[in-house]
């Protein structure tokens, strides 16, 4: 059997790897919170980019240091199912936002609708 048998302890992390992940998470948490709490004026677009960018990096940090996802764990099925889920999430999230954004633009303003109903024969 080619499955690793004695690397389990390393795969579940050590004090060092947990502390590394923790330190990175603290930095990646404090920066966006500081940005919002100090009301630093860098423009809404940049602020959102920093918040979401660092959030995405922190998710990767957690996946690596806390969830210990590797390409070889469970013969690759763990990483494979995670990538599959990520693809589905991108489709659901971007699809929803895109479709509903346009729906709202195409909606008739409420007051016009009331007028239309009033003028019905």
């Amino acid at each position, binding site marked *: 059997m080619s499955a690793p048998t004695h690397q389990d302890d390393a795969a579940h992390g050590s004090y060092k790897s947990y502390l590394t992940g923790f330190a990175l998470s603290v930095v990646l948490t404090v920066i966006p919170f500081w940005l919002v*709490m100090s009301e630093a004026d860098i423009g*809404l677009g940049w602020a959102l980019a920093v918040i979401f960018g660092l959030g995405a990096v922190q998710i990767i940090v957690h996946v690596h240091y*806390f969830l210990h996802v590797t390409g070889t764990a469970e013969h690759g099925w763990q990483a494979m*199912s995670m990538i599959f889920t990520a693809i589905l999430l991108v489709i*659901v999230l971007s699809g929803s936002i895109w479709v509903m954004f346009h729906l709202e633009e195409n909606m008739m303003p409420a007051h016009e609708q009331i007028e239309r109903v009033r003028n019905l024969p």
Partner: protein
Amino acid sequence: MSTATPSATDMPEYHVIETPHHDGEEHPHETGTMLGFWIYLMSDCLIFGVLFAVYAVVGQNYAAGPSPADLFEIDMILLSTFMLLFSSITYGFAVINMQQRNTAMFYLWMVVTLGFGLAFLGLEVKEFTHLWHIGATPSTSAFLSAFFTLVGTHGLHVTFGSIWLVVLLIQVGLHGLTAENQRRVMCLSLFWHFLDLIWIGVFSFVYLAGVLQ
């Protein structure tokens, strides 16, 4: 320890039977439970993904009610974020002590983890009751419906994770760190770290981005 006798092979088994492996060591990974639990987590991830999508779509429909900037107290959110982050690393320490067969330290770190988890839940209950008190209920606006559904679902997960943690500690107390209990500890570890991961999305998307707009 199972109560079923090993000789009764025709009896249905409702738990994973641990078979000793070639070298006699216990590998919690080799039953398939860990992969199955991981796939459950991925399906849970899709639930949260859909709730995030709902929040993204209706999160700015305030219906003349309060907006995130009126409601959210970012310093309290920072505090609860750190409660979850601390609980993540203390759970990691518990797992390390479990692998080193250090049951007393395992217990200590698990109880600390539970403490941070309950502190997080306490802060969330405080926030929700405050919102309820000032009239910001789910029926106020689409934004608040989506907010309570998303954040409440996460809070429920943490609640059930805490109940699981207590039950697991009782089981370890009764039977010790058997192979079955080690596997359960590893499953809850995935669950607990996963909830911290979802919380990154919540505080970035709902709270921080919310008060900026």
